């Protein structure tokens, strides 16, 4: 499953990052293997979405969230 497909309010664990150019920035922002995220906000028409990552709210574009493979929890 991709992070972009995570339903609102659901929790997931990051399996891997599939991008090269955004990798470092994602890691710096706290997105890396093993981290748990919860989807908190979404917008219309594949607009940005926001996730809780280690106690803060991080928003990503749809295209950015597609670069993160996840495993659905609960």
């Amino acid at each position, binding site marked *: 499953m991709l992070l972009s497909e995570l339903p609102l309010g659901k929790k997931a664990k990051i399996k891997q990052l599939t991008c090269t150019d955004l990798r*470092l*920035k*994602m*890691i710096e922002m706290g997105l890396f293997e093993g981290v748990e995220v919860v989807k908190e906000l979404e917008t219309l028409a594949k607009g*940005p979405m926001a996730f809780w990552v*280690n106690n803060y*709210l*991080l928003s990503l574009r749809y295209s*950015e969230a597609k670069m993160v493979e996840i495993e659905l929890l609960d």
Partner: protein
Amino acid sequence: MEKKQYKVALIGNPNTGKSSVYNLITNQNQPVGNFVGVTVDKKKHSILSPKNHEIEIIDFPGTYSIFPQSEDEKVVFDILKDSNHIDFPDIVLFVCNSTQIQRNLLLFFQLQQIGLPVVLLLNMTDKLRLMGKKINYQELQKSLPNCTILPINARLKSDKNIILNSLDNFIENNSFSKTYNTKYLQKLANQPELKEKDTLDKIYQAKEIESKVISQIEEDKSSKFTKKLDKILTHKIGGYFILLSILFGIFQIIFKLSETPMEWIDANFNYLSNILNQTLPPGILTDLIAQGLIPGLGGVLIFIPQIAILFLCIGILEETGYMSRAVFLLDRWMRPLGLSGKSVVPLVSSIGCAIPGILSTRTISGEKNRLISILVAPFMSCSARIPVYTILIAVVIPDVYVLGFINLKGLTLLFLYLLGTFMALFSAWILNLFVKEKNKDIFMLELPFYSLPNLRNLFVTVFTKTKDFVVGAGKIILAISIVLWFLASFSPVNDKIDNEIKHLKSSDLSTTELENKEASIRLQNSFIGIIGKTIEPVIEPLGYDWKIGIALITSFAAREVFVGTLSTIYSVEEDNEDGLIEKMKNDSRLDRKKVYTLASGMSLMIFYVFAMQCMATLAVVKRETQTWKWPIFQLISMGILAYFASWITFIILK
């Protein structure tokens, strides 16, 4: 012995309260010497510590890591990679958001690896408490043995000395680093794999520390509050209505709240001008002061209330965390226009002034998105246009109500703002078709917790930005007013004037009529009259006369000069008690038709919506794009657009 000045860098992630710390320790009693647009990338301020050491505080832009992704983050990297750089610090004050230890410590470890001595300021511990969490200071100190840790609250004045004392301690114990490991940065910069490994190692270390020192002891009320508020403010549909209402509300507040203080300033300036005229001995110097300087200066100062309120509103949007939500909501709709959601900040700031607006595009990492944002920002109606619009509306728009309650004057103003915004978005869409994409834009944006604005920050922002406007515009306006006054008061063809006046005196006109005609002849044959008459054919189709032509030319220095120019020209021509608005209303051409009609007035306002009349902005665009190509492009294309749009407006309304 020569006294050493110690360089102290303030470094930290965005949203850590870094600027609050800066404002706290520099006290801002002596205003910072940075005109917006001169020192943009970093702010500097010298202070004396309690033990009389000279300390220079350097405030760096907020960044998540030393390795840069966007222009504003590059500043940190460029200075820290070179220990001979003039701004390379002796000590780092690292501002740490205690609710985000893990993410913050990454940057902290990078700084330590360079060998920089770091004092860790643990800020926002009050927020941590609101989140129901506790921090174990002893454990944190044990995990970071080589650094001074100070829990602070940047909102408390008393914490200023705690910070400064720690710097004194540092200096007196001479615990500076002798060698720096800047090679570490240079080595990693071009090796993505090594950089990633290094980053991950540091983050795992930070994560471990965080899990050791932070513990949840109560219910998390703070996140709950932000979650609840976000359900409303960033609602898929309702969020947009709220956003529009907020922008509309700000617009209303600016114009309603500023009315009274503006009238007050206006009244006092007229009073001052009259007093000077009566008390100073008559002569050329009095004329220069009463006709040139005071009207010109009054033209700027009257807009202080509007500009201050505008910057206050923008400041509140940023401080509360709402601005990030606006970015979040609008990104999807800005992208088809070649902009990023992050362009919202530059565009909204440009309603205040395009210069800080253009500077704030540095946070946009995609070069194409950034360039387009820079190019279209000057279309947003900035505060310098307010004087022009206000005076023209007062002269040409009748005081009537549409539908019984909407004031036509207010509606015109709203229309001009919307037209500017529309043009910014529309031209972005056009540019999007032509500008090439160089690198991918990264969005990844932290949405900070909602919080009450820090009053000191708000005050400092409003004060410095308003001051910058007044000082910057004031200098230009004063200089231009003086030059104009000379050009309007002297003539190269004195014989011709004498002849015409002799001729006039032989006719049987009343004394007042004679005086008016005489003044008018003198002005038309002055240096400025001759210049104005020369360019008149070019602007005639737009409905302007030569006086407007002069005001248009001087406005290319800065738009607000328009009002000062007209005040100077008119007060030279007719030295009576009437205000500028009355004089403009009464001004008529040779064929007795009024100069300012609905058609010519609207045409002029449209010209100001579109034209690129601001030297300071052009200079900033040149610096930010590193080439003259783009400012020249803006000047010419926006000028042509303004000319044709005004021409069409005049033809339709004539």
